[in-house]
């Protein structure tokens, strides 16, 4: 009887500990290499590698053309998408609200003709970059398909150590 009571007590204690452990907020997993975001451009674009600074300049509208006078065409994901979150936090260092206000001021100062094109899926991002010769977009490396070209950032491809868009 005593043995049975000890077992029940032990079960309750361990169960309570397990319950507490389960109630602990789930820690956000560290991004893995397979979560890397690729920077894609149209295959006709002769650029194969850009720096982080250049990436920021493209996505802030400071650089507006590729080589051979090819106009840059910016494509971004809509709010809530991971690609957009990484663009804002790793590249532009802005909040969503700051990003919107930035582009309103940029367009109406006359510095750029339009805001980046906002799309709701990686599929449409791929299609836009395939269609537009000057297109550039951030997309999950797992979703990269043919018809676009992945370029290096600071000499690194997605999946390598120290890749900046993770």
């Amino acid at each position, binding site marked *: 009887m005593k043995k049975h009571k000890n077992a029940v007590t032990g079960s309750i204690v361990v*169960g309570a500990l397990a319950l507490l452990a389960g109630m602990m907020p789930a820690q956000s997993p560290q991004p893995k290499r397979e979560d890397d975001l690729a920077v894609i451009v149209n295959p006709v674009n002769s650029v194969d590698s850009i720096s982080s600074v250049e990436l920021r300049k493209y996505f802030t509208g400071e650089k507006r053309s590729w080589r051979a006078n090819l106009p840059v065409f910016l494509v971004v994901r809509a709010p809530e998408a991971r690609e957009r979150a990484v663009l804002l936090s790793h590249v532009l260092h802005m909040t969503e609200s700051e990003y919107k206000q930035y582009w309103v001021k940029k367009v*109406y100062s006359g510095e750029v003709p339009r805001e980046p094109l906002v799309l709701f899926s990686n599929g449409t991002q791929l299609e836009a970059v395939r269609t537009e010769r000057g297109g550039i977009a951030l997309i999950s490396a*797992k979703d990269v398909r043919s018809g676009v070209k992945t370029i290096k950032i600071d000499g690194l491809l997605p999946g390598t150590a120290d890749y900046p868009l993770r």
Partner: protein
Amino acid sequence: MWRIFAIGSLAALLTGRALAQNTQPSELDTIKALLQEVADLKARVAALEARHEQPVTGEAANAPAVEPPKQPEVAPSESNAEFGVFRGIKFAGFGALSFKASDARPPESALLGFRDHSSSSFAVGDTSLFITSHLNSKASVLGEITFSETAEQGFEIDVERLLLKYELNDYLKLSFGRYHTAVSYYNQVFHHGQWLQTAVDRPLVVEFSDHGGLLPSQAVGVSVTGQVPSGHLGLNYILEYGTSDTHRPTVDGSGSAEIEEDNGQSTIVGLFARPDGLPGLEAGGSFYHDRIQPNGGPLHMGQSVVSAHVVYVTPRYEFINEGFVVQHNVQETGQTFNTPAFYSLISAKLGGRWRPYFRYQYVNANSPVFPDVKLRHGPSAGLRYELNDYVALKAQIDRTLRSSLAAFNALNFQLAFRF
């Protein structure tokens, strides 16, 4: 017994995990976003299946330090879908409701829609319609039409900017039409639409000339800008050649008539740097020159404006400093009049919505072209609150010291919005 123990522990663990998940409402948003994305993707499946494509393998995407995978060269789609060009005209607007109370004696001139001979009044001020139209990947049109409220609550329509813009590349960008001159940093970056600027109003020296400002703020002609190959220094140039026709009302409440400068052709040369090492920093200057004949009178003058600016602007911080010397050389007498001026504005965003700011401005007008201004200087302190991405509330206190009249204080409130 151990089976009971194990099952109990597992049940407790799962229950706890479920409870923990229930405490994270952001995951619901994520699920909603994912569902939306799935719906979008389903809508694209038919089109995507029609294309001949093979997924790039995970190994290729994850391959460390290798050249980009040799993906099949697929010619850009010849479909009629043009992601890059939006046909038609896009409108956006900016408006504001302002209230101003001042203890100036006699009252200063009523500008920007405020009532004459009144110590306090409401005004709508300038309502601006911005028009953009994308012609092709390199050409666009930008228009800015402003409805300016008068002291009698009438409205005057003015085409502030109308530009056909063509960007050959980063080094050569051409604009043809009516533009806000590069005579100052503020004039280039902040246009009509009080929502765009942090403070309630513009510093006097860079106020639009038809609202009492000292500089020729508009011209019709050609503007050429672009980058200068300069590596990490980030040099840019500006060249403008056009015709301005500056007319400015007096600001001191004396009731004097507007001053018509009868400007000739104007030339602007400017250079500024945006170093890669500190995003948001810009330093530069410009030189403006034209010839004027104030009010068609007997005097002919050469007018030159030298400006220099150092600004640091990020989404969170704003530190704008700009200085000027306006020089008038009278051809008939050989006299030279110099008018130095500067302003400095600093602000920081607190908690995402609040932005306190402080500004100091100084003008020491020593020219027959600015007889109403003389020495004026003083601080402004204010607070801007963003209700959302479209509406901002501002409150501002000004103290202005004048050399020929008593100092005065002003209290301003403004509801500025875009639509």
